[in-house]
């Protein structure tokens, strides 16, 4: 359980990594990557076991460590005619750890600087300043002159400006969810069809205040009716008016 107390203290993945390196007394320029990776992952497991939220940054470094470990296991391949290429031509030649080492050193540098900042701040806090006296500055204003050069009209117009700005803000709309079902729309179309045996213009199904959902559902309803063979659809010419007829009336014709 001692582990959980320490876990909270890590500021980030590098902090944890530095801690592991210190604990293992590892040479930073020759990190025993397999062992460190194993311990690092162990910590992460411990964290999730304790129900701590593992920040994604910790996982990023875990992935990096595993990638480095993998790279180091792979043999370095280079073609036979080596002389053709200058030294360092192959990216693989670089130690897979070197980027990580650079990052750790960089991080450690600032971590140490932060410590000397703490020392400076500590020294500084031992030296006391005159306290900020807000009241003192307030008292510098002559109370009688506080409202000088200021009229009721100005206050009114300032208020107007505020009201105007408020009214220009987005007005909250309450959006009601309309429950439109395909079945409802089929019934609606059938009703319209029966009242117009001479044919119904497709466009007349829609009126101006149809919203998007209604337009779509109405169209689905029409497709459904065509599938169920409950409506006849005729278009006399290209781009011409599409006419809908009740099935019975077509039969009659």
């Amino acid at each position, binding site marked *: 359980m001692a582990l959980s107390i320490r876990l909270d203290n890590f500021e980030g993945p*590098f902090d944890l990594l530095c801690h592991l390196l210190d604990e293992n007394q590892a040479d930073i*320029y020759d990190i025993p990557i397999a062992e460190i990776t194993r311990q690092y992952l162990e910590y992460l497991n411990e964290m999730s076991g304790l129900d701590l939220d593992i920040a994604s*940054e910790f996982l990023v470094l875990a992935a990096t460590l595993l990638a480095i470990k993998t790279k180091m296991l792979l043999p370095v391949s280079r073609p036979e005619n080596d002389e053709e290429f200058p030294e360092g031509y192959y990216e693989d030649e670089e130690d897979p750890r070197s980027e990580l080492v650079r*990052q750790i050193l*960089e991080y450690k540098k600032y*971590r140490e600087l932060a410590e000397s*900042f703490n020392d400076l701040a500590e020294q*500084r806090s031992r030296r006391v*300043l005159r306290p900020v006296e807000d009241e003192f500055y307030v008292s510098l204003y002559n109370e009688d002159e506080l409202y000088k050069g200021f009229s009721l009209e100005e206050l009114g117009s300032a208020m107007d400006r505020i009201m105007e700005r408020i009214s220009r803000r987005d007005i909250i709309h309450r959006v009601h969810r309309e429950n439109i079902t395909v079945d409802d729309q089929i019934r609606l179309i059938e009703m319209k069809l029966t009242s117009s045996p001479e044919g119904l213009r497709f466009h007349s199904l829609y009126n101006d205040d149809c919203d998007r959902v209604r337009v779509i559902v109405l169209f689905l309803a029409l497709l459904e009716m065509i599938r169920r063979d409950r409506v006849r659809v005729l278009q006399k010419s290209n781009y011409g008016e599409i006419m809908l007829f009740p099935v019975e009336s077509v039969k009659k014709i």
Partner: protein
Amino acid sequence: MEPLFSADIRRAVEALLFSACEPLKTKEIAECVQCDEEAVNEILRELTAFYEDRGFHLEEIAGGWQFMTAAEFYPYLQRFYQPKARKLSKAAMETLAVIAYCQPVTRGEIEQIRGVSADSIVAHLLEKGFLKELGRRDTPGKPVLYGTSEKFLELLGLKSLKDLPEIEMNVKEAAPERVAVGEEEETL
């Protein structure tokens, strides 16, 4: 207001510094006492020397001048004041260190170095007044550039950014060389 006699200017500067609860810049003092900055600087030097062995000193801090008690008497003052705990967290100090030495710096760069998201810490430090925005970098996304404020210098008791502790360069330079050695061993 009557112009001051030269002997009174020194006392006026002293009075001004005594009344202030934040560092006063030479320029501000000069404007107040209607005197050129060089003369004020001379007076400030005299006053600094005058207060050297007193219970409080005149100190140059954050680009200005301010009276501060001598550190050695802090234990006694502590008996009177309830010292406010205003210690910054480790994460906040680290972030400040990165920003102090790399400024102007973007949030992304801070995150790169520290390996953690800097969102909330930067927001916190901005709110506390230790940081200021220095515009935006002309790269995709136009990230905000951050730098340290005068309040940061006050926090550490520094005159200016030049007083920051020096970075140990040997660490940085030694690194590639030694990695190179490991590299050879690897490929052999």
